Each structure stands twice: as C-alpha cells, then as structure tokens.
C-alpha cells in the first residue's frame, strides 16, 4: 500500500512536470506577446518589461526559473494585473470556487444517491421510471443551459433570485444547482445499477433468510457495497465540477478561479494562464489520487501491488 502511494505521488510529480512543460511551450508559441493589447509601446519599454519579467532569457532558462519559483509556492506574476502575484489571485478566487464546488458536490450526492437507491429498490415502479428519465435528461443537458433556464425562470420571470454575483445565500442557489445536476444524474444512474447488482447477491439473500430487518440489510449490506462504484466515479466527477465551474462562474458573474482564468486567456496573460493551469492540474490529479487511495480503504477486496 505504501509503495503504491509513493509510486502514485511520483507519477503525479511527473505528470505535473510534463504538463507545466507543455503549457509553458504552448504559451511561447502564442502569436503576440503580453504587451500587445495596450497601445503600442516604445521598443525600449518592451525591452525593459521583458527584462523585468525575465522574458529576454533563453527558453529553458525561463522554464527553469518558472519551476524554481513554483517550488517556493510562487506561481509567477500576472502580466496584466500589475503588482499581483498569480498565487494571490488564485488564493483570492479559491474560496469562491471551492465553496461553490463543495456545495454542488454535496447537493449532487444528496440528490443522486437517494434517487438512485429508491429507483433500484422499487424497480419498474413509477419512481424508477421518473428517476431514469430525469437522470438521462440531466446527464445530457449541460449545466450552463440549465443555468440559463433557471435565470429565465427565477430571475427574469419570477424575480425571486438575483442573476449573479457573490456573497449572499440567494446568489449561490442557482449556480450550485446548475453545477450539481450533471454529477447528480450520473450518481443516480450508477447508484441505481450498482444497487440492482448488489441486491441480487447471495449475501443479501442470506441476510434476508436470517430474518434481519430490511432496514438493517439496506444500510449494512446493500448501501455499503452499492456505493463503491459511486466513490470510483467521484474523482472524474470532481474534475467535471472543476471544468463546469469555468462556464458557470462566467454565467453567474462569480469572481472565482474559473472566471479569472478565462479573463487571463482573453488578456493573453501568460503568467496567470500557466499558474492557473498548473493549479488546476494539481487539484485534479491530487483529488484523483485521494479517491484511488480511499477506494482501497472502502473496498478491502482491492489490493494494490
């Protein structure tokens, strides 16, 4: 187990190194430099700016500097928001993105698991059909389409909720739901099929034959085993939430990391782009690692060699 974890961490470091190298080289291929957007600058000024940010050095020296700084928790400087480090920009956006993501994830679990379980326990009933229909629909409608429908209904027509912004509970309801429906639908589908699978197992029949109360069987035998595939999917789902948050944050004007990243792309802010890509990579890869390790804890049948 320890060997497996060490191996995975090593692999994570390699992945991040390769990813930062790819991002770094790609950013150098971009036509146009970071100083192009503002009015044409005198060549001397450009030279001075390049010198200040180390852009006059050879490619690999710049990459080396970049890596060295990352090791010190410094993701570089933003080229458009002067005097702000990428680390501070990310730390400023992080609480919003993380709050939204965590709320959406909890919502997805609270909606997905009960619906999936109910559908499986009452297979072929009306609840089952409704749950299957809704999970199919919500699994294929992107969050931002749903977000727009929510805005039209609750902001434009009913005037119940604000269209966007950050800070109040009302402002978080719609983006959290828009972000949560897709993973909720996936969780409901997986929970349903894995519960159906587990219910057919011999140990469930044995428990029933022994006269154990249905509720106890449900919690101890069915739920615990049925949720294993749900946990496996949690990693990809979290990655989904991260991707989804780019668009949702833009739609609902939430000043999180996703929105800053998109602004950075517009402004050709290399520093901000590379910093956020690396940060996202770290978060997603780290979450996947945690999920894989948790997987072994939950399901003792799984052995890592």
């Amino acid at each position, binding site marked *: 187990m320890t060997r497996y974890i060490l191996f995975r961490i090593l692999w994570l470091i390699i992945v991040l190194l390769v990813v930062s190298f790819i991002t770094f080289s790609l*950013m150098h291929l971009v036509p146009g430099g970071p100083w192009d957007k503002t009015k044409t600058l005198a060549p001397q000024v450009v030279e001075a700016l390049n010198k200040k940010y180390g852009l006059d050095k050879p490619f690999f020296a710049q990459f080396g500097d970049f890596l060295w700084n990352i090791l010190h928790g410094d993701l570089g400087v933003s080229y458009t928001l002067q005097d702000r480090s990428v680390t501070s920009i990310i730390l400023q956006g992080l609480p919003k993105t993380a709050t939204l993501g965590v709320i959406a994830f909890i919502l997805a679990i609270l909606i997905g698991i009960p619906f999936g379980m109910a559908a499986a326990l009452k297979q072929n009933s009306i609840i089952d059909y409704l749950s299957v229909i809704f999970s199919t629909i919500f699994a*294929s409608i992107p969050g*931002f*389409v749903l977000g727009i429908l929510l805005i*039209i209904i609750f902001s434009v027509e009913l005037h119940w909720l604000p269209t966007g912004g950050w800070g109040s509970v009302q402002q978080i309801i719609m983006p959290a739901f828009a972000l949560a429906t897709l993973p909720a639908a996936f969780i409901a589908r997986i929970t349903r099929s894995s519960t159906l699978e587990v219910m057919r197992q011999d140990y469930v029949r044995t428990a029933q034959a022994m006269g154990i109360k249905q509720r106890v069987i449900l919690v101890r035998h069915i739920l615990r085993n049925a949720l294993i595939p749900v946990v496996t999917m949690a990693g990809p789902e979290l*990655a989904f939430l991260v991707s989804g948050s780019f668009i949702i944050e833009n739609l609902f004007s939430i000043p999180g990391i996703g929105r800053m990243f998109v602004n950075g792309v*517009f402004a050709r802010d290399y520093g901000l782009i590379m910093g956020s890509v690396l940060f996202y990579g770290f978060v997603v890869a780290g979450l996947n690692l945690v999920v894989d390790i948790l997987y072994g804890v939950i399901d003792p049948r799984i052995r890592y060699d």
Partner: protein
Amino acid sequence: MTIAAESVRPHHTLWGDAWIRLRRNKLAVTGGVIILLITLLAIIYPFFSKYDFASQDLNAILQSPSSEHLLGTDELGRDVMTRLITGARTSLMVGIFTQIIVLAIGLPLGAISGATGGKTDNFIMRFVDIIYAFPDLLLIILLRSILGGSIYMIFLAIGLVNWVGVARLVRGQILSLKQRDFVTAARVFGGTGGYITTRHLLPNSLGPVIVTVTFNIPRAIFTEAALSYIGIGVQPPTPSWGAMIRDGYNVIFAAPHLVLFPAIAIGILMLSFTFLGDGLRDALDPRLRR
C-alpha cells in the same frame, strides 16, 4: 442425420441484428429522427428563408415571436429562426469534424498501442494518461488561444484533446480480442501483425467505438457552445448557439427568448445524441443478442 427445420435460426449478421434492436428502441429512434430533421433543416432552410443570418434590420430589433419572424429578432434586428438554424450547421459541423479528427488520431494510436504492446504501448498510454489527468475544457481553451481564429482551429483544438478516450477504448478492445481463438487461428494461418490488426482486431472493436463517438458528438457540440459563450469560439457574424446566448444575455430582461431558444436547441440536440447513443450501446451489445 437431418437437422430439424425449426432448429435452424434465420441468419443474422451482428449489424443486421443491431439495426433490428435499435429500431425497437423508441427513444433512440426519436433521437435519430430529431438529429436527421435538424440536419435536413440546417442544410435546406437557409435556401428558403426570406432572411439572411447576417442581415440586420434596425427598424425591427428585439421583436417577440410573430408571423413575420417566427422566433422574433435579436438586438440587431436579425431573424432568430434563420440564425438558430444556421447555428445548427455550426454545431453539427463541430460534432462531425471533431470526431473525424478524434478517429484519425485515436484509432491508429490505440491500435498500435494494443497490437504491439511493450515500450510503444507504454509510451503512448503514459501520454494518454497525462492528457486524461486534465479537465478537457482547460486544455481546449489553452489550445484555442494558441491556434487562434478560424472555426477549423476549434475543430482541431477539441479533436486534439478528445482523441485519448477513443485511443484507450481501442487499445482495451484489441487487448481482449487478441486472446480470442479466431485471432490465434488467423495467426496460425500465417497472418501478419498488420493484417490481423486491420482485418480482425479493428473491425471487431468498431461497435464500442461507434457508441463512444455518438456520445462524443454532444460533448463536442457543448464545448463549442461553451467556447463561443465565453467569447473564444466561433467569430461573428457566423451564428453559433453559444454566441447567440452570450449576445442575448445582455438583454435577457427585455427579450428572454433570445437566450431561451438557443439554450433549448442545445439541450434538444445533445439529448437526441444521448438517446441515440444509449440505443446504439444496447443494440451493439452482443450479450443482448438473440
């Protein structure tokens, strides 16, 4: 000894069988018919429409749906119906061309990886893992900002990120097919590696690939819509559903229909592809054969 007549099954090929099962699936048929209708409309409607998708009429801006403009007009007085249907062209083109790129990269790399194994396999799969470790949209936005302008570069950016799924799938299929008796038989008869791969391994892994591609299409359509929505997708005046949503969003209180119609269109098209994909997956599953 003669075989009893009733024990002889009518001959069905896998594909014929799948087609029969697909036709029985109402949702899949509905999805397929909607996709066909949207495609037909997207091809022929612009020839019959009174309006051009780019022509502005500043005397008729932000009109609600009427008999003159079936879905109303936008903030520049352009006919929303015409723009919506021309936007379907953009979406369908994105769906199809990205998958051509995905197949062009994913099929050969997956096949090589699975068929040769060893170091080549390891190298390709580690590369796939690295791309896999990232949220797609992030990489696509990155590539998009590097590749720049035209709509073809959007196809390329999406294709360059999404091929990894197909490569993994094909590799997995080939690894399991390699153990099968008919492949051993082909080898015993002297088939070379290339021959076995192209004649036996690839054709037999086609079913799951078709299903994956059917599910990939709506994802690509969504990606384009999302890129256009945040303003780095298809450039105006080419209509795209994502861009229509972005433009309409500024006047959402005055004319919610500008945002509503493209949002519903994206939803319907994506749902149709999902229904068709679900149907294909069930239809092509040999375990369900009768």
